[in-house]
């Protein structure tokens, strides 16, 4: 594994919602070519962490470095231009825009001449979206909406793809599908930071994982090791 080349480094993040101290001194790294997962119970601070990286929230302290560049405090639209794409929790597709328009928004930062190729690439991966290209996205099924959310992220050709609970609310067969898509995307050269409540699935495809508990990193290690860890098994794998 490409262990060496550091891509994203988060150091001592502290994020507040008013007086709620949601992230308390979180540090972690993502190396180029890895799948890294953040797992933890509901409310542990996983989404807050991703929102901080993508610039929707600010950390009071510490630093965020992406490919050697400080991205802490950058506006979200500027972070996107650096090649970090965040697929937020709950998919957040534009339900009143068509499937195609959603993809166009995903490609917002790309030059116009690349648009058709980029969208064609997504349609290759998700033929279902092509069939529904003129359809308003709000009429898609949950699974299709998740495909659209991922497709919308891919059109911008990210270097780092951050996914927040992509399997949430999906039937088991779709969950399998989503995880295999993530692996495919990863094989195509995209580094992945994956947030999941489905810890078993996430750890089984991840190179490394971090366990978050009430805003702190309590455990870290290779995915396989965490999968075998007793306290992780008890708390997150239900065995």
């Amino acid at each position, binding site marked *: 594994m490409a262990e060496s080349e550091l891509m994203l480094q988060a150091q001592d993040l502290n994020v507040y919602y008013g007086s709620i101290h949601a992230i308390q001194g979180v540090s972690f790294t993502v190396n180029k070519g890895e799948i890294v997962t953040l797992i933890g119970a509901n409310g542990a601070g996983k989404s807050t962490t991703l929102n901080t990286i993508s610039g929707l929230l600010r950390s009071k302290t510490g630093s965020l470095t992406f490919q050697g560049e400080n991205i802490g405090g950058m506006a979200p639209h500027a972070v996107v231009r650096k090649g970090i794409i965040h697929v937020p929790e709950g998919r957040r597709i534009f*339900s009143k825009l068509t499937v195609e328009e959603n993809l166009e928004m995903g490609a917002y930062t790309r030059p116009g001449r690349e648009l058709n190729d980029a969208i064609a690439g997504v349609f290759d991966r998700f033929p279902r979206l092509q069939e529904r290209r003129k359809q308003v996205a709000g009429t898609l099924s949950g699974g299709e909406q998740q495909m659209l959310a991922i497709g919308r992220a891919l059109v911008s050709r990210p270097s780092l793809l951050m996914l927040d609970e992509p399997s949430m609310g999906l039937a088991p067969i779709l969950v399998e599908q989503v995880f295999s898509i993530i692996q495919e995307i990863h094989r195509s050269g995209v580094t992945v930071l994956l947030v999941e409540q489905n810890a078993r699935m996430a750890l089984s495809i991840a190179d490394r994982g971090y366990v978050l508990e009430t805003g702190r990193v309590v455990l870290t290690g290779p995915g396989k090791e965490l999968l075998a860890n007793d306290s992780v098994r008890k708390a997150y794998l239900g065995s």
Partner: protein
Amino acid sequence: MIVLQQLINGLQLGSIYSLIALGYSMVYGIIMLLNFAHGDIIMVGGYIALLIIGAGIHPAVAIIAAIVGCMVLACVIEKAAYAPLRKAPRISLLITAIGVSFFLENVAQLLLSANPRSFPNTAIIPTANFNLGSLNISLTTLVTLAVAIVSMALLTVLVNRTKMGKAMRAVSEDMGAAQLMGINVNRTITFTFAIGAVLAGIGAILYCCKYPQVKPTTGYLLGMKAFVAAVLGGIGSIPGAMLGGLAIGMAEVIVNALGYTTWADAVVYVILILVLLIKPTGFLGRTMSEKV
């Protein structure tokens, strides 16, 4: 025939209300603000045109200056007064808008006095009438309808076909997700204000050509009617604002035609109250569709 005549009058007035209602609706759609300063932008546009024509400069220059002036003013207001409140509660934003409205009215009064000034409408659209049988249509009416239709068609193309228009719709629906696409939300919001103000500037000229006078409170009642039109059409909806404007114009003309002239303005408020009681989402209000 008299019905047709009134229909045409209603269309003329209504299309002006539509142009102005669009600015209300688009701004509400994107930042949930009832921008009560929007009406006063029209007053400023009216004064700009009036003063420039009064100075003996070509009316075409005056028209362009009025429209550009409205646009610049709206962008300045947005940057100075609304942008700092992006994360504040909606009510703070609303109160600020009311404050801006009072500010503009009072500045106008200070600089230009409270007395109405007559607007040189014939310098912009010459007096001419066409008779079709017993139907009498003025050139002002024809120009108003043509300009309003073209403006709204262009707006529709802008919003549905261009990258910026799509970004506007994306930001309206989900500002956070739009940011994650790399859309510069602040720029998109400013752009929305600018478009709304351009339409208001066009509306200002057309309105002043129909009712040729300007005073510091010109924007108040006009803004109010356009606001009701936006609510009636379904606030946030662009076709809704167009329909709502036409409906309010028609209602006003009908009430006048029936001889209840003194009631014409009150009827607008009655419509507002009825809409809010019976169908707060208006004709084409947003219906939320969410799927898991």
